[in-house]
Structures are given as structure tokens and as C-alpha cells.
């Protein structure tokens, strides 16, 4: 059942066409931020309006949608966005990564490897990777045009000189197809390698900032680093307390009043899928 009085997937067809044009341009120039006339959505800015607009523009009746926030399908905002599409587009939804044709995400890439034909839609708060170095759009656009990324390399170098390591914990800058510097959205470093030559199409939507960018399938995505200080991902000394995984991103949980800690998979579907065969035995 879809909401009455609104078009399929909420946006009117003209707006969807405008967004699809921006998406085509984004795919043609990997990593380049395409300005688009973002619309107000019935969800607040900063809560995924860019991703929602991208999903609304590409979703069809046969799609199967998965929405995650922090890797989980059952966090409140993921529930809210999934419900929004179930209501406005009447599409099938799923929590299983392997079954989804479109996966809208905030801050994670699923642990289960993506396949060709799947589309990842990322919610992006600040699309400009140079923003913390240069607040002005007029300047950063020029820097991108000239591929003038010295400031970012300098920032990384200064981190290493002062702290012995790069201190960017998430939203770690990447260079796409050897050209544009790109924000991978606030995913942890562990997810950065998954962007590289991914068989899935990856679309990024920033609603408030009105920018769309993309990484087409099988495109090189390199996390910035130095030969003597290679890019490194997060490591844990423990495994998932629930499924025992030692290869997934773990959330730290405070389990008692004495500050006892436990770690579990941030990707709920991955965690569940590892438990499923065991439960069946």
C-alpha cells in the first residue's frame, strides 16, 4: 500500500529526472561532486535526505530495499527510512544484504561482499573532503579543478609528525580513479578497502549540501597514505561476543555498572547470518 496523494517514492517525476541526470554525470566523472537542486524531504536534513532522494530516483517496483544505519537494520532511523519507502513506493524490503538490490546506508558498508548489479546508496553529511581544511566552496571547487590536494597530504603528514599516525578515524579521504579526492562518507577505515574495485555501483547523496557523487563498479578507490606510513584499518583484540566473528567491525557495549565491556558486530545481518546455520543444526 502506498501513501495516497503522493507520487511513487514521494518525489515527482521531474525531480527524479533531474536527480538521475546528476547521477549520470556523477557516474561519468567518478568522485566528482555534482551540484543538484536538492528538494526538501519529509525527513530532516542530516537524517539521510540525500540518500533518500537518490533512492527515490532510482527505485522501481521490482527492487528490494535494505536500509542500515551504523550497520544495523533495526536502529530507529533505518527503520524510519525503510518504512518511508515501504509506504511511499510499496516496495519489498529486506534485511539480508545478499537479497537486496538497493542498500541505503549511513556510516557502514556491509561485511557480506557486494555483487554486480547491487547499488549502494550512501547518506553523506559533508561531501567535501577538503571542508575542514578550507571552509569556502569557491576555494574547494578550485582545488578540485586543479587537483590541488597538497593541503590534504600536508594534513596527513602533520598528523604523522605530531602523533606518529594519521588521526582521521572515519570518513578517511580517498582518491577515486586516480583523480578526484572524495569523502567516502563517515564510514570507518575498515570499510574503505571495500570501496576499491567494488562490483556494486556506489552512489553518494548529500541533501543539505546539494551534492551527488558516485563510484562506478570496478573503479579504483585508494585511501591516501605514504609509502612509509601505509593506510591501516581498526583492529580489535576480541571477537564478536555473539557470533564469534574476528573479521567484522565491532561495536563496543558497556554491559554493567562497573564498566564491563563486550564487543558485537555492527553489521546485524552479518552477525545473524553467521548464527543462522548454527541455530539450524
Amino acid at each position, binding site marked *: 500500500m502506498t501513501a495516497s496523494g*503522493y*507520487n511513487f517514492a*514521494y*518525489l*515527482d517525476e*521531474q525531480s527524479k529526472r533531474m536527480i538521475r541526470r546528476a547521477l549520470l554525470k556523477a557516474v561519468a566523472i567518478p568522485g566528482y561532486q555534482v*551540484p*543538484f*537542486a536538492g*528538494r*526538501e*524531504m*519529509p525527513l*530532516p*536534513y*542530516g*537524517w539521510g535526505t540525500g540518500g533518500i532522494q537518490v533512492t527515490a530516483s532510482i527505485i522501481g517496483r521490482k527492487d528490494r530495499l535494505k536500509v542500515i*544505519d*551504523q550497520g*544495523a537494520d*533495526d*536502529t*530507529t*532511523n*533505518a*527503520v524510519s527510512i525503510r*518504512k518511508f519507502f515501504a509506504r511511499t513506493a510499496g516496495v519489498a524490503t529486506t534485511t539480508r544484504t545478499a537479497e537486496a538490490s538497493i542498500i541505503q546506508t*549511513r*556510516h*557502514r558498508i556491509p561485511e557480506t561482499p557486494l555483487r554486480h548489479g547491487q547499488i549502494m546508496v550512501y547518506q553523506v*553529511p559533508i561531501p567535501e573532503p577538503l571542508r575542514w581544511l578550507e571552509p*569556502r*566552496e*569557491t576555494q574547494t571547487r578550485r582545488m578540485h579543478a586543479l587537483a590541488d590536494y597538497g593541503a590534504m597530504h600536508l594534513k596527513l603528514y602533520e598528523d604523522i609528525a605530531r*602523533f*606518529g*599516525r594519521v*588521526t582521521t*578515524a*572515519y*570518513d578517511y579521504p580517498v582518491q577515486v580513479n586516480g583523480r578526484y579526492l572524495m569523502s567516502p562518507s*563517515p564510514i*570507518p*577505515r575498515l570499510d574503505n578497502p571495500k570501496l576499491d574495485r567494488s562490483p556494486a555501483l556506489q552512489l553518494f547523496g548529500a541533501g*543539505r549540501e*546539494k551534492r551527488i557523487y558516485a563510484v562506478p563498479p570496478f573503479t579504483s578507490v585508494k585511501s591516501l597514505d605514504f609509502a612509509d606510513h601505509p593506510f591501516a584499518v*581498526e*583492529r580489535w583484540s576480541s571477537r564478536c*561476543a*555473539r557470533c564469534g566473528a574476528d573479521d567484522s*567491525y565491532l*561495536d*563496543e*557495549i558497556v*554491559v554493567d555498572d562497573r564498566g564491563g565491556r*563486550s564487543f*558485537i558486530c*555492527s553489521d*546485524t545481518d552479518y*552477525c545473524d547470518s553467521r548464527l543462522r546455520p548454527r541455530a539450524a543444526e
Partner: protein
Amino acid sequence: MYVAVKGGEAAIEAAHRLLDRDRRGDPTAPALTVAQIEGQLRLAVDRVMTEGALYDRRLAALAIKQAAGDLVEAIFLLRAYRTTLPRFAVSLPIETAGMDVDRRISAIFKDVPGGQYLGPTFDYTHRLLDFGLADDVADPEKEVVAPAAAAMPSALLPVMGWLEQEGLLEPERENPELVVGDITREPPQYPATRDVRLQALARGDEGFLLSLAYSTQRGYGRNHPFAGEIRSGRTTVEIVPEELGFAIAIGEIELTECQLVNQFKGSASQPPQFTRGYGLVFGRCERKAMAMALVDRSLRAAEFEETVTAPAQDEEFVLSHADNVEASGFVQHLKLPHYVDFQAELDIVRQMRAEEARQEAAE
């Protein structure tokens, strides 16, 4: 053993029910009607229409009711509705000179042809609580009797005209070639043109613009303003439908316009003259109209070869932070879970502390 937190869906639904309950308040008290809000909270309706960028008193009143009086939330509701509407025509420029005014003042001439009209204004009220209003029981004896409507001239010539005639005020240049931008259909690009800037200011948050305007008066980008003319009233909106080829009136809207006159000492390319700041809003959001006009003039710094030193003169700073729907959403998104990012930060801080401890032990 930790059990993953489930039940987001049920929690959201319960939260919505609690919200409905709180909005209704005491069920023994009569429910507020949309007509009451429209008629009696008219200035709230004006603000929601202005910043919601949709002239519809009834929908704005409904949004205020639904938002339990939270005006920024009501503005958001109206915007999210507005964005789904088709744009079927662009109106002709409205003629505020022909406005059917209920208020018209000028602070630069003691008397102006046509006269000055205070109209309904808080300006000269003493801000003493009127305890008589606390009595909810309607007393027809006490019903307000408006003064007999003065014979208002239907078209008051704009005050700015006299300055313009003398060549003391920068002329208003008409540019029939200009296709006016539409910030709801085109992404922002900097530097922006004045039409686009004015649109963004018209939708901008009243509080934000008020503070920026105030900052210019306190020396952060001072631009020596005078209230040349402020007028409120009703103006006809006309469109030219393609199939007709001539203008037809589609309705009347209430507007408040503020024209500022600002001192300007001249530059290498321009003679000394007065310059303009312009504000236009729906309804009677006069404070907003004045703030908008002050900020508009500040943002014209480059045009008059003035040095940009203050936040109110910085176009990218002002325009990219003026929208309260954007600002409210992004500030409040901090409530969303950030477990993953925080975990990544924890990892870095722990590594750095471990490294430091190792170094200290080695020393």
C-alpha cells in the same frame, strides 16, 4: 550476554502516540481549531508562510497546530509539502507601489506625500501584561472596536522615488533580459546573484538574520542605514498564462516591504550617493523584513567595492547558514546513533595513549 537492541519500530510508533497526546494537552479543555490559529495567531502564521516559502494561511495554521506551536517545525512541515507542488507559472513582478496599504512609515522625511500610517503595530505599546486577556470567557461588551477605517489612498508613491528623482539614490535598474533564478530548482553556486540572494534571505531564519543585521549596527560591517520606507498591505499577483498571452490576477497576498537607504561615500567608479537594502516578506513579519534589508545591503559589499571584513558581508557564510530547515536538521542529527564513528575515534585515542605509555616506559 548482550542481546542486540530490537524494537526500533515499536518505539517510533509509541513516540508518535506520545507526541499526539502531548499536542492535545488536557482533553477536558476544548481543542484548538485551525481557524482560531489562522485568525488569532496571525503573526505566527505569517512567519511560517514566509520561511516555509508558501503563501497559504490555512496550511500554515495547520502546520502550527501539528507542530504544537514549534514554528521551525511548522516551517519544515510546510516546506516538505511545498516541495511536492508543481511550478506551473512564474508571476509577473509584483507592484508594491500599488499596494493597498494598512501601514506605511518613513523615518527619513517628517512628512511624505500621501502621509504616514502606523496601522496595527506593537511599536508604541507599553509591554505590560494585559491581564484582561487572561479571562477566556468572551465578553461581547469588551470586544475590540477598531477605529473607523481612515480613508487610505489606494496607491502611495514610494518614498524612495523622491531621492531617486534627485539622483541621490542609486537607480533601480530594470533588466528585462534577466531570467530570475529559483533557489528551489537550482543548486546554490557562489558567488550568487542578487535575485538568488534575496530569495535565500526571504526564506532565511528570522533569528539568524536578525542577529546578523544587529551585528552590522554594532560595527561588524557597518553600512549606515535609514528606514526609507516600510509598508504593509495587500498586493495583487498576476501571471501570464501561455495560452492567453495577457496577464490575469490569480489572487491577493499580504506583504511587508522594507526599503533601506544607506549612506555611501562613493568609490573609484561610482559617485557618492545613497544605496539600497531590500527586504520583502509575507504578512507582517516586519522585524524580518528589516533584518533582511540590512543583510541584503551588507552582502552588496563587493558591488560597492567595500572591503569584506564581517560575517554579515560574507555571502557564502550568510547564505549557506541562513536556512533553518537545513540548520535544525543538521544540528539535531547528532541525536542519531554514531556508534561506528565513535568506536573508530576510541580506537585512535587508545592507540595513541598506548603509544605514549610505551614511549614513557622506554625513557
